[in-house]
């Protein structure tokens, strides 16, 4: 019984970070129709920024998080303006190829600069976990969970309550009309990509201290993010949030009671099942055909 509760607790904690990984990607896809293969590298970028700030420049741990996220935003904006802006209107596989190229470049630059050796970031949290009866969870994880939820909330607010958000949603609904309404589509794209990148970098900066920082750390994060996005329906923030938690539960319980070897397969199996039953993802509003 305790094991089951521990699994639940783990899943909830993990779900928060998965959701954070997911929304950035889904935002970019929904609004820009770009399958962002650099998502995982921006996650790694955030983690390396965190490492540099905390371990080399001894910046305050919490300040460093904010800075890392800011750098992620700048990085994202730069990528968008450098690579994607001139590719608008190109078909999905062209942009995808460019993003794959960028992914290869970024990952190997990371290894070139930092070498393949794993780095770890000290966190100010007590090493002893928070104990709840038979259950326990590290303070660092709790902190990550809370910040993740906060960031997700902030994103919701930004998308649903602000003028920028309104413009984003308009672009998402119908870019042509949006353009007619005088929305600067390219600005929206840059903003969207920057925001998505910032969220990915934040996730990296949050999880860097929990895990270790390596050049290939982005790959797994990216594959999870893709799973989450498709679970929730492409471009659906609520879906991605729920998708994050669902994936966490499926993995945790799947690994716990079916086979840990298939832990990382669970998400993909789920995707295939869901797409066969509901092609637009779990929470996507039905689309019109013809």
């Amino acid at each position, binding site marked *: 019984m305790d094991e089951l509760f521990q699994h639940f607790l783990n899943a909830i904690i993990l779900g928060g970070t998965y959701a954070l990984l997911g929304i950035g990607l889904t935002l970019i896809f929904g609004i820009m129709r770009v399958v962002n293969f650099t998502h995982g590298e921006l996650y790694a970028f955030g983690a390396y920024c965190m490492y540099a700030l905390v371990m080399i420049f001894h910046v305050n741990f919490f300040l460093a998080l904010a800075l890392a996220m800011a750098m992620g935003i700048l990085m994202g904006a730069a990528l968008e303006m450098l690579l994607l802006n001139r590719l608008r209107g190109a078909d999905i*596989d062209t942009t995808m190829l460019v993003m794959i190229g960028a992914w290869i470049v970024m990952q*190997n630059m990371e290894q070139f600069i930092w070498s393949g050796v794993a780095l770890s970031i000290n966190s100010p949290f007590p090493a002893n976990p928070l104990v709840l009866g038979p259950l326990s969870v590290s303070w660092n994880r709790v902190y990550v969970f809370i910040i993740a939820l906060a960031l997700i909330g902030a994103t919701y607010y930004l998308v649903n309550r602000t003028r920028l958000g309104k413009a984003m949603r308009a672009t998402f609904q119908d870019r042509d009309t949006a353009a007619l309404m005088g929305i600067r589509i390219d600005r929206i794209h840059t903003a969207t990509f920057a925001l998505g990148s910032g969220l990915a970098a934040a996730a990296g900066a949050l999880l860097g201290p929990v895990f270790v920082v390596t050049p290939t750390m982005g790959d797994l994060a990216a594959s999870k993010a893709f799973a989450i996005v498709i679970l929730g329906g492409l471009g659906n923030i609520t879906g991605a949030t729920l998708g994050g938690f669902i994936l966490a539960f499926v993995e945790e319980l799947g690994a716990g009671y079916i086979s840990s070897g298939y832990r990382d397969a669970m998400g*993909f199996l789920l995707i295939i099942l869901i797409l066969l039953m509901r092609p*637009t993802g779990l929470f996507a509003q039905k689309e019109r055909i013809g």
Partner: protein
Amino acid sequence: MSRYFGWLLVAFLASVPLWMHDFYFLHVLITTGIFIIAAMSLNLLLGYTGQLSLGHVAFFGIGAYTSALVSLGFQIHVLPDFTIGLAPKPAWFAMLAAVAVAGLTGYAIGKLSFRVRGAYFVIVSISFAEVVRLVAVNWVELTQGPMALNNIPVLRLGAGPLELSFLRKPEFYLLVLAVAVVCYVVIARLVNSRAGRAMIALRENESLATSVGIDVTHYLVLATVVSAAIAGVAGALYAHYIRIVDPDIFLFIYTVTMVIMVITGGKGTLAGPIVGGALFGFVPEILRAMEIEPELQWVVYGVLMILVVYFLPRGIVPAIGGYFSGQKSGGTAEAATTAAEPVQK
């Protein structure tokens, strides 16, 4: 016109072992050739039906595993006390089995995944490949998991004195070339036929295609089957050349390689995958020869990808004159002059 160029090129390539005795060079040609075959199969889906499959390596891998398992034999427990097994079969038979199994998988996947399109299809295909990889990793009894299937037999044809063994590079190189030519012809005939027109039609305008009575799903599945079967051949060649198969054969980077080859060469053109394949087959070798930092070799590789997309968005072949493309309107000229009665009467 282009046809003669084609046969000239084949003749030239076939002559390579005669004057090129550098085995490493042949090795590069062989591996490149295998990937060109895979890229041609991907091009059928991506280029002609317009469906981007980022799980294509799964068909390649399934071909490789099938060929390896059939030629090595296996024994698995279906139920605790019930096992099914297969005695080792000759390599050529194994390769045919690989084509069949890959084709069947293609059929199943096509039937299932073409309920979705575009980006959804892309991600379904990735997921599919990932699941197949994890099965290969975890179903140790069948696949040996990460311990890999090794000592895969060499392909041998005939027997006794006239036995032809494909252990040495020149023979294997010619085998790959032959297979490549066959696959090329198959694809060329397909895309220039009624079925091919249907595929291109659904790429260009799906609802218009259905409005003239084309069963879109049927042709998507057909394309997937043929594509998967050809990818399976490539995988089988790989298995009997490298002679070890492990779950790494499902690495995403292999799919990426195929996609790059197709798009840089020019998707939807017959020559595209060959040109793109030749280019990206050699790039890593050239970089290797330049002896720059391994990481930087990758960086250059990635930058090259991006540049190609920018400067040759439609690919190299269309850029150097689209008249090798499979959708050339060759038939038009002479056909248009042949007179006949109007149908509508």
